[in-house]
């Protein structure tokens, strides 16, 4: 029996029906690694609006959603295009006041997700004392004390996204999902969310998952939908399959700071399918993006 007969496996085209306008959505990945970019593009194609995006270390994913008018709110601890500069559309949205935002400290955001995943209303930690961030958000951060020693601690309220969207290497029809390289905050986001959508490089039979069970980071009972999306993290990386596409990111960064160019970039995505996107952007470059992973070198003879 093909694993694709299970009801959890849906085509990418259905993604827009799984996420409603105005919902909070946690997007996986971090830095320029493993963001669920095929899903980001599909939400834009579906015309979703008012999305409250949650990201730990966002990059082109958040900037593109901001540029497309998909976002109603942005919760983040960092959004950056790194070598390619600040994220122009996130920056513009916040500076102009058109994009409401919540800035978390990095550990605070992960601990809020962890609290929810553990069924706790909050969790304490030795927080970012002296930071101006907690005082900005009394509905998220509070001061508490250890009941045993009296030590002052920071409490972070549990954070429950309506949806988490994460990109895995592979998953089976039950939603058992595996990562090989960077998983970042994906597992914590999935455990905290009401609904979980896994996009993956390939949908495989259960036996492939069983044969590599040590790589399963998310068991299927968390997962509501599985979507096959090859090169689904592009132009961010999915190690070990492909490196980040720095050339496409450079083009994106150039377009992103020019209102006319970014409008055209978004319009192009809206009018093509994901298959069309791959054909247009990857051309015959997919093999080089994969070869960049192989070409990455350790320093020979050096001690680990």
């Amino acid at each position, binding site marked *: 029996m093909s694993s694709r007969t299970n009801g959890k496996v849906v085509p990418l085209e259905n993604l827009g029906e799984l996420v409603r306008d105005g919902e909070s959505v946690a997007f996986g990945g*971090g*830095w*320029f*690694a493993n963001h669920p970019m095929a899903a980001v593009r599909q939400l834009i194609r579906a015309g979703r609006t008012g999305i409250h995006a949650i990201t*730990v*270390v966002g990059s082109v994913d958040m900037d593109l959603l901001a540029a497309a008018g998909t976002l109603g709110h942005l919760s*983040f*601890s*960092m*959004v*950056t295009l790194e*070598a390619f500069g*600040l*994220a122009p559309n996130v*920056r513009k949205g*916040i*500076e102009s*006041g058109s994009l409401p935002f919540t*800035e978390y*400290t*990095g*550990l*605070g955001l*992960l601990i809020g997700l962890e609290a929810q995943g553990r069924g706790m209303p909050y969790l304490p930690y*030795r*927080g*970012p*004392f*002296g*930071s101006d*961030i907690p005082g*900005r958000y009394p509905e998220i951060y509070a001061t508490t004390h250890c009941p045993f020693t009296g030590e002052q601690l920071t409490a972070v309220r549990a954070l429950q996204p309506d949806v988490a969207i994460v990109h895995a290497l592979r998953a089976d029809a039950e939603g058992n999902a595996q990562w*090989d*390289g*960077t*998983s*970042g*905050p994906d*597992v*914590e986001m999935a455990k905290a969310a009401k609904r979980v959508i896994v996009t993956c490089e390939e949908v495989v039979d259960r036996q492939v998952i069983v044969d590599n069970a040590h790589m399963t980071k998310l068991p299927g009972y968390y997962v509501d939908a599985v979507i096959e999306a090859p090169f689904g993290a592009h132009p961010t*990386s999915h*190690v*070990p399959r492909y*490196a*980040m596409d720095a*050339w496409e990111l*450079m083009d994106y960064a150039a377009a992103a700071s020019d209102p006319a160019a970014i409008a055209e970039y978004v319009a192009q995505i809206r009018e093509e399918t994901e298959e069309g996107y791959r054909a247009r952007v990857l051309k015959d470059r997919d093999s*080089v993006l994969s*070869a*960049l*992973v*192989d*070409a*990455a*070198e*350790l*320093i020979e003879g*050096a*001690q*680990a």
Partner: protein
Amino acid sequence: MTDYEIHELMTCRVAAEVDNEGVTVMGSFTPLAYASYMLAKLTHAQDAYLVGFDAVGMAPVQLSFTGAEASAYKGAVCRWGMLTEINSIHLANHGGVEAVSSAQFDGSGAINLSAIGPFDAPKVRLPGGAGAAEVIKMYRKMVAYFGNHNPRTLVDKVQFVTGTRWKVGDRSREEAGLQPGPIVVVTNLAVLVKDDDDRPFRIESVHPGVDVQTVVDNTGFELEVPADVPTTAEPTQEQLDLLRNRIDPFGTVKFDFVSGRERLSYLKGILDAEWNRAAARLS
């Protein structure tokens, strides 16, 4: 004297802070910090325990924009995710050295990676601090580096405190359950150190050719100036050979020191070299 560039001296000075104690999580690909850790690992701190992306206990890697992530995994002993890392390293007091940079830095050790101007309606919205707010407080050593030492970056008081060292002196840190250790600032002009809550940063050394007054004039916060300020050690030929030939043959560290219009073409040059090497593997 060997011929070197300022980013190489800074890389060597940051590397000098890296030792064999604790774990360093590298986060985003920040070339100068990465190069410093690799240099330390190839010279005086071979047992330095490094985490890059989710690759834990990684081997020394060659720097490149597209390959840093993949190479981190190739020699690593473990693959975690962000939450396991923060619970097992940051919150459990295993953090060793953290090198950060920021838009503003002040005399108390506070960094601003959030906003220039009002927080809610900023003149410039900055990227945000990721884990820096917690990390610079908890790690044993805080190292901050700045390629352009001026009073707009090294300010009297940051406009918004994304994070701060909170406690500085060894005793007050230990009383607060934190690892004792200094704040070390490495710039293109000098090295500044603060290890006492009640005293300002002092000039530890000035780089060759830089006079003390230039450092004072370009620092927005009060500095303690010792009677005798030594000169920062220059890179050795061995360090330069390692940096140029083995650690960073593409020149990624220098990218952050290239300004204006040359920046994009410099980046394109690096990326072309990375592309060509990968493409050659296919032919």
